[in-house]
């Protein structure tokens, strides 16, 4: 379907988002959806909401007007839900749970994600950033192209997670390699073949965690895995075996690709808008404004991956969403809704200057970390990684330029990269 046809009608927004046109630039289509079909229903059943106000309402009403899927309901979207290991693990993650189970599980882990705990990680993150930039410098200075995605954006969250989880760096790189395959297998559009690859990868991740749990039991360390193993061993009602594995698996799924994509997009914004670089050259308030605007313009997870099930018939913009329907929200579109963010396609960090993180000066919510009970557990961790890296990249390599066009992952759901080749721009001395 090309742009001309989409102006008339759209049969399946999920399929359209997976088209090559949308992989390149999904925002014209999202604008069309907001203006013509803001409460879209795909032929396969799920609804997709694209207006900021509707998205906020659904996210706030999660746990109330909307619930997570019941065990049988995943099978509507994923016919192989009963037999797929990845889908079984997904069904046990935090994001799929409702209160009070959700509250119990989230509080076990939120201890390690408090604002203070994440702030304590800042010096370690700054050290990793400095080491990775040092590692890239010789090749760049020789005039060579370097893949910033593979050499920096992806390794940073991987190395941070290796410290948090207390596992060897090379093991975490091995796990990270498989995460992309698992994420693709979980997309609503995924083929059986992709799901099979995801399941094989999930099986090896699960086996690794099984061994890791044993190691942490005999050799406890001050890390997240040891803490969760302790909670499980104290009282399996507090944290079951399945929940423990799903929790670890879910943190990897949520934490790598998304953070890397945000760093990639921040670098692209630096290169595309040199007139906005002053935000990165001053104090932390300016850096925060730049980072929040990057997150608003390019939500790494474009729509909600988990079903929200309507508890009753709900009328929205003249459309009735029937009870038990699966509702997804297109947060990347909400972030570009002119009703919330005037002139939404313009990159303008001033929208977030001097505000609390995630809030615009007009008090509108930047949706990339979600909202409501499933608000991203790792939001602050991601923000600190961005704040500690983006100004350093700019400072260290002020003549950075694209070596060739970046390669995007062909995903309808994640706006991520496969490669981001950069080099230093020769500036006569």
């Amino acid at each position, binding site marked *: 379907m090309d742009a001309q046809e989409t102006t008339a009608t759209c049969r399946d927004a999920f399929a359209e988002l997976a088209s090559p046109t949308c992989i390149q630039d999904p925002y014209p289509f999202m604008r069309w959806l907001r203006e013509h079909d803001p409460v879209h229903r795909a032929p396969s059943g799920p609804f997709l909401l694209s207006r900021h106000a509707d998205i906020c309402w659904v996210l706030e009403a999660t746990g109330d007007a909307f619930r997570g899927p019941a065990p049988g309901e995943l099978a509507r979207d994923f016919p192989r839900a009963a037999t797929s290991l990845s889908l079984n693990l997904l069904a046990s993650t935090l994001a799929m749970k409702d209160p009070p189970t959700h509250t119990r599980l*989230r*509080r076990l882990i939120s201890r390690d*994600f408090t604002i203070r705990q994440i702030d304590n990680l800042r010096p370690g993150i700054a050290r990793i950033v400095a080491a990775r930039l040092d590692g890239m410098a010789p090749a760049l200075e020789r005039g060579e192209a370097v893949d910033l995605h593979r050499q920096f954006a992806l390794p940073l969250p991987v190395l941070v997670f290796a410290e948090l989880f207390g596992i060897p760096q090379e093991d975490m790189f091995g796990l990270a390699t498989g995460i992309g395959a698992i994420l693709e297998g979980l997309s609503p559009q995924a083929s059986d073949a992709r799901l099979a690859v995801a399941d094989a990868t999930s099986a090896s991740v699960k086996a690794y965690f099984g061994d890791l749990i044993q190691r942490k039991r005999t050799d406890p360390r001050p890390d997240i895995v040891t803490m969760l193993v302790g909670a499980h061993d104290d009282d399996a009602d507090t944290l079951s075996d399945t929940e423990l594995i799903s929790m670890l698996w879910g943190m990897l799924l949520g934490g790598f690709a998304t953070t890397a994509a945000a760093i990639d997009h921040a670098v692209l914004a630096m290169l595309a808008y040199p007139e906005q670089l002053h935000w990165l050259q001053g104090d932390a308030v300016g850096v925060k404004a730049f980072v929040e605007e990057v997150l608003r313009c390019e939500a790494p997870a474009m729509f909600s991956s988990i079903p929200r099930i309507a508890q009753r018939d709900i009328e929205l913009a003249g459309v009735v969403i029937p009870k038990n329907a699966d509702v997804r929200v297109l947060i990347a579109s909400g972030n570009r809704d002119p009703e919330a963010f005037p002139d939404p396609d313009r990159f303008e960090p001033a929208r977030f200057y001097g505000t609390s993180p995630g809030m615009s000066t007009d008090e509108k919510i930047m949706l990339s970390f979600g909202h409501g009970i499933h*608000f991203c557990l790792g939001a602050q961790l991601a923000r600190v990684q961005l704040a500690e890296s983006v100004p350093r990249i700019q400072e260290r390599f002020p003549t950075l330029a694209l070596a060739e066009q970046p390669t995007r992952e062909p995903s309808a759901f994640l706006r991520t990269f496969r490669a981001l080749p950069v080099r230093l721009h020769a500036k006569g001395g």
Partner: protein
Amino acid sequence: MHVVVDQDLCGTTGQCVLTLPGTFRQREPDGVAEVCVARVPPALHAAVRLAASQCPVAAIQVIESDAGDDERASAELAPSPAEAERHAANDQRNPGGHDGTV
């Protein structure tokens, strides 16, 4: 003005702590938000209302009805929350100012 966090509802996102680090904190064992002031100084009224409206799970409740509260600080053009908090701290260190209610 008083402010309370519904600790059953709290989503442990830390948003309130980022907005007003002197007014809210997160409990060590589970990240649940707590209020660390008995009474909200007038200079922070607008900022606390903002923090309440921004809580992702609407767990913050503002109780406005303190007799004798100075409502001047809730004017339309409020300073940024963190700035207001610094000013409020200064006010408390300088009790001779005109904003005190006692």
